[in-house]
């Protein structure tokens, strides 16, 4: 879930500086042909935001605040960050406060996406905390005129050799922490960790289970009014007429807003706004244009659209001889983020400035988009992240923020709360893109893969804001801002080609990314981006090849994998599952296995699963799953387990049930009836997650790690149970039944 990271603070500071750099650099190179090595940068997000007090501040009374530019979206990293800071600062966990994503208070860390928060922000906080601790020790040493080595820290204080305690609050003075981070920090020895590595209970859960104000939906500002938008019935629909006079007279209605194709109602109370929205919706007449593709024909449509093609892997070894070749096509439909809470935002306009409370994953990029939409300088727009319902990528959050801002501009001084309706979230959110993969591979005489061809067709996987054109409100207003041209996300992270390059060693390999600019359906980032479908495809096809080779699925993977950490998670998952070579599942059940290293550079995850298939109905059920994960140094093991458990269940739901539906004009999956997801009757008996901790190794993140392996593991288990290979997602009851009967 990546996109353009907009470092606008730096841009503002740079001003004319960029000009100097562009002239001075070639001059230096002309004088000295050996270019000087670039100065080493501090790790994680410290590289872009190097001042220590951007991350950690200590008050005179000893109160410590940690700042992160990432947004807590239910992953629990706020707790993990607090653990990291407590550990490296040597202070009690409970004495810290963590402030997240706020354009006036925190670093610009771009989007909270790509399982990058621990790597970017966690690493920055860890190093900043370690360096702050060093500075505090140095200050104590200076005051007592003793060598720094003779001091230690404990419980928020520096302890002198004679036992004298110098509290952090007493030591910190003036701009002491306003210094740039050093490239290297003296981090603690992981063997001595007291807080990191512990399953510390999450700081946000008590409020969430007692009715505290835990979400943006729960915010109530003085004088706040409630708004609802009336969206067009379909993409591109034009408002032809709308008599709003009757609606303006409805009880509680404060204002009816029409700005081109953007319409909204504002009322004193929330249900008044909903009633007015319904009336306005009835009054509005639209001209619609049928522009959607045929849903049944998506794979042909996608592979037929113009594409920008890039060969992203080319490996050749003529000595590897093909004996047997197979090929297969895998497809994925458009899928919905499916947040349980529809998107919500609050905005307040005052004196040519706008404040927006939002559950966006990127306060800085969103600020830029909203500023552009309102023709305000970015500095006059203040975005504050407040947690919302889980988003799993780019859902309606950013659009709701823009909606609130556009409405609030019409009501100066008044805080305006907008929440989307269920059908708006389902109908208008940007979906996870449909994808097609075509695979072809050969086995040599030893049953090893001698050649591998992989082609993937996909739209972009990020249309996140930055520019206003990504936001519905800006697209719909009278002076619309056009949708920006889609761009592929570059490798090594990749978008449609995320995880398209196999991690296995194949002597001949050819991988092509067909990037499709045209987007007939609104799409953007959804948890794991292209990795979900690419890993589903690769790991399904690995099983198809293993079967032809007559080799056990786990053994076949190990045979093609050198990476020792990858091998370790495969072996761990297999062992804990009780995977046996030559095993046979109980009647009507199947075993499946899959593995991936997310983005080929982040966490490793292997998942073994057991699926039951009802042969009469075709209905599949995941009975149990066992996962092994290596996410580097573990900060909160229970948080990591929670993420992987969730990934398995959510990915299983995508894989078995989910597809956005549409006719030639409108999206038709607009609620939980028309877009069914996992319910309790299909929840497994058991999920076990085993962590392979790597003390002292970099944080690798975990949020998106499980999506691909879970999908393929379930698909492989279905194939094992039925003897039939299904390649078109979702693997529905009906498709399984038809395959059994075929």
């Amino acid at each position, binding site marked *: 879930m990546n996109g353009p990271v907009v470092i606008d603070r730096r841009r503002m500071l740079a001003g004319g500086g960029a000009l100097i750099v562009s002239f001075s650099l070639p001059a230096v190179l002309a004088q000295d042909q050996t270019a000087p090595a670039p100065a080493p940068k501090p790790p994680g997000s410290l590289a872009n935001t190097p001042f220590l007090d951007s991350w950690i501040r200590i008050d005179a009374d000893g109160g410590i605040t940690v700042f992160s530019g990432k947004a807590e979206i*239910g992953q629990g990293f706020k707790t993990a960050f607090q653990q990291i800071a407590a550990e490296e600062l040597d202070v009690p966990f409970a004495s810290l406060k963590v402030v997240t994503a706020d354009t006036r208070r925190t670093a610009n860390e771009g989007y909270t996406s790509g399982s990058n928060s621990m790597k970017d922000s966690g690493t920055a906080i860890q190093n900043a905390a370690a360096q702050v601790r060093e500075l505090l020790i140095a200050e104590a040493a200076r005051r007592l005129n003793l060598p720094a080595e003779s001091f230690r820290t404990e419980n928020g204080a520096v302890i002198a050799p004679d036992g004298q305690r110098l509290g952090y609050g007493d030591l910190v003075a003036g701009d002491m922490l306003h210094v740039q981070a050093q490239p290297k920090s003296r981090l603690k020895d992981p063997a001595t960790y007291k807080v990191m590595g512990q399953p510390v209970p999450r700081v946000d859960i008590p409020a*969430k289970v007692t009715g505290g104000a835990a979400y943006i939906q729960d915010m109530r500002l003085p004088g706040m009014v409630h708004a609802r938008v009336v969206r067009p019935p379909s993409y591109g629909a034009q408002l032809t007429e709308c008599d709003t006079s009757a609606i303006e007279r409805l009880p509680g209605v404060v204002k009816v807003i029409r700005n081109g194709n953007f319409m909204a109602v504002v009322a004193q109370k929330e249900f008044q706004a909903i009633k007015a929205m319904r009336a306005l919706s009835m009054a509005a007449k639209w001209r619609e244009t049928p522009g959607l593709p045929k849903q049944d024909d998506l794979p042909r449509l996608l592979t037929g659209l113009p594409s920008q093609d890039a060969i992203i892997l080319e490996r050749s070894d003529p000595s590897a001889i093909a004996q047997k070749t197979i090929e297969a096509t895998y497809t994925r439909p458009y899928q919905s983020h499916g947040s349980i809470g529809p998107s919500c935002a609050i905005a307040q306009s005052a004196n040519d400035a706008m404040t927006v409370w939002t559950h966006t994953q990127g306060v800085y990029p969103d600020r830029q988009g909203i500023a552009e939409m309102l023709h305000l300088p970015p500095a006059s727009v203040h975005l504050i992240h407040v947690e919302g319902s889980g988003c799993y990528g780019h859902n309606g959050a950013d659009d709701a923020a823009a909606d609130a801002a556009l409405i609030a501009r019409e009501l100066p001084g008044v805080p305006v709360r907008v929440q989307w309706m269920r059908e708006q979230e389902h109908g208008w959110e940007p979906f996870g893109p449909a994808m097609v993969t075509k695979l072809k591979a050969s086995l040599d005489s030893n049953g090893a893969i001698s050649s591998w061809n992989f082609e993937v067709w996909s739209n972009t996987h990020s249309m996140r804001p930055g520019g206003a054109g990504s936001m519905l409100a800006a697209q719909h207003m009278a002076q619309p801002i056009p949708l920006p041209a889609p761009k592929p996300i570059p490798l090594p992270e990749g978008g449609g080609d995320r995880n398209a390059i196999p991690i296995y060693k194949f002597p001949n390999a050819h991988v092509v990314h067909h990037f499709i600019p045209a987007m007939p359906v609104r799409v953007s980032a959804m948890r794991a981006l292209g990795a979900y479908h690419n890993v589903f495809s690769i790991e399904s096809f690995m099983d198809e090849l293993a079967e032809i080779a007559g080799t056990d699925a786990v053994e076949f993977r190990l045979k093609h994998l050198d990476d020792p950490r990858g091998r370790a998670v495969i072996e761990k998952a297999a062992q804990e599952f009780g995977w046996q070579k030559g095993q046979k599942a109980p009647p009507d059940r199947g075993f499946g296995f899959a593995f991936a290293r997310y983005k080929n550079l982040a966490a490793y995850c292997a998942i073994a699963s057991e699926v039951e298939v009802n042969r009469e109905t075709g209905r599949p059920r995941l009975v149990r799953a066992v996962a092994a994960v290596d996410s580097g140094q573990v900060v909160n093991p229970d948080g990591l387990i929670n993420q992987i458990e969730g990934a398995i269940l959510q990915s299983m739901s995508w894989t078995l049930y989910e597809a956005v539906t549409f006719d030639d004009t409108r999206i038709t999956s607009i609620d939980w009836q028309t877009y069914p997801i996992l319910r309790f*009757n299909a929840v497994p008996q058991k999920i076990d997650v085993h962590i392979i901790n790597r003390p002292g190794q970099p944080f690798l993140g975990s949020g998106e790690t499980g999506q691909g392996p879970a999908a393929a593991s379930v698909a492989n288990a279905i194939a094992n149970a039925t003897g039939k290979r299904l390649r078109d997602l979702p693997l529905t009851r009906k498709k399984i039944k038809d395959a059994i009967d075929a």
Partner: protein
Amino acid sequence: MMTLKVNGHDHQIDAPPDTPLLYVLRDELNLNAAKYGCGLGQCGACTVIVDGKAVFSCVTPLLLLEGKQVTTLEGLGTIDAPAPIQRAFMEEQAAQCGYCIAGMMMRAQALLQKNPKPTDEQIRAELEPHLCRCGTHMRILRAVHRASHLMDTASSSSTTIGSAR
């Protein structure tokens, strides 16, 4: 104007009779726990207890509630003095984003009030109307079992205290 009894207190409510209970709770009484999820009774995020039964507050109009007892998650316990079901969800860390959790807890609470020792199958069947998108289901199930255990311990220990007196 009508009287609505919520969490043991009478409230005078001035809202049209077709107003769904959800908006009365959130907008008139400033309660947070019941959440808007779908407005259609499809997801369970808005669930509260009315006279001992779990109901979708998003599709229950105010006019049906005269003389009835409404209980929300706020009525069970507080952050400092959590009810057994709240303690159980904390102890099992049974939330990711947590948006669905308050509704889940209310239906589980209603189940435990009438069936203190439900089987795993009974809990699953009872929670069928509820959606969780983060995939926290395994923890939710464990938390309901734990709540059943905690309630049992609480009632037996209070009996012990009572008999010791």
